[in-house]
């Protein structure tokens, strides 16, 4: 009886500790996400993305790459 109670107590304590760890981690993630998203918004406001020609992006290698077609 005492052993079963001990195991249940240990399992419960482990679950609570995991829950606390998850809650701390979730809060940290939320904070980091908010800061990172605000930085991205500010960056896009200051330097709005420009349309770029895909052909120019692949100008060196052409649409099928340097050494063969992948599409």
């Amino acid at each position: 009886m005492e052993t079963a109670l001990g195991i249940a107590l240990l399992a419960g304590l482990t679950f609570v500790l995991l829950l606390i760890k998850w809650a701390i981690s979730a809060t940290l993630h939320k904070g980091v996400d908010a800061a990172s998203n605000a930085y991205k918004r500010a960056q896009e406001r200051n330097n709005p993305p420009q349309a770029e020609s895909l052909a120019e992006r692949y100008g060196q290698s052409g649409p099928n790459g340097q050494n063969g077609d992948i599409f």
Partner: protein
Amino acid sequence: MQWVLIIGLSAIIFGIAIAVGNSRQKELMSEGKIVKRDYSFWENMEIFSTGIPYAAVLNAVRNTDYSDLKADVYPNVNGQAAVLWKSSHAWNAKLLYAGENAGRQIYRFSFTGWRTRNGSPYRPDTMNMMMTRIEKMILAMDPSATVETHKMQLKSRPRFL
């Protein structure tokens, strides 16, 4: 003395891992399967402006092999004009037809979810391959296509265990 040996061995193993990663990246670049991209390119959304109708894009998507990316394709997912890829490299990607603007067809490509390890995706090389494949597919169909790269607003979620 033992510590010096352990630290030395760790440095050698780390160096070998970096060298192998770099050589694979060079190989993929020389094959034209990836291109050099920004750090954290997987957080970008690419907005394509093309003259290609959705039916033609769908046809091209269906005729492309994704086995090297270990990705399954789901065309017209949830009844939307969109294609979803689910890769067993722990990422999903989506190409959404966003309608017509000034006579051009607009498509949005982005990674909709990925698992991370120490802040980076498990296999960013396969994500680069996927993005490159989509760009080349669109370019092959419409050489006048343009692309705008936007940073996405992200929401991360820790795992319980």
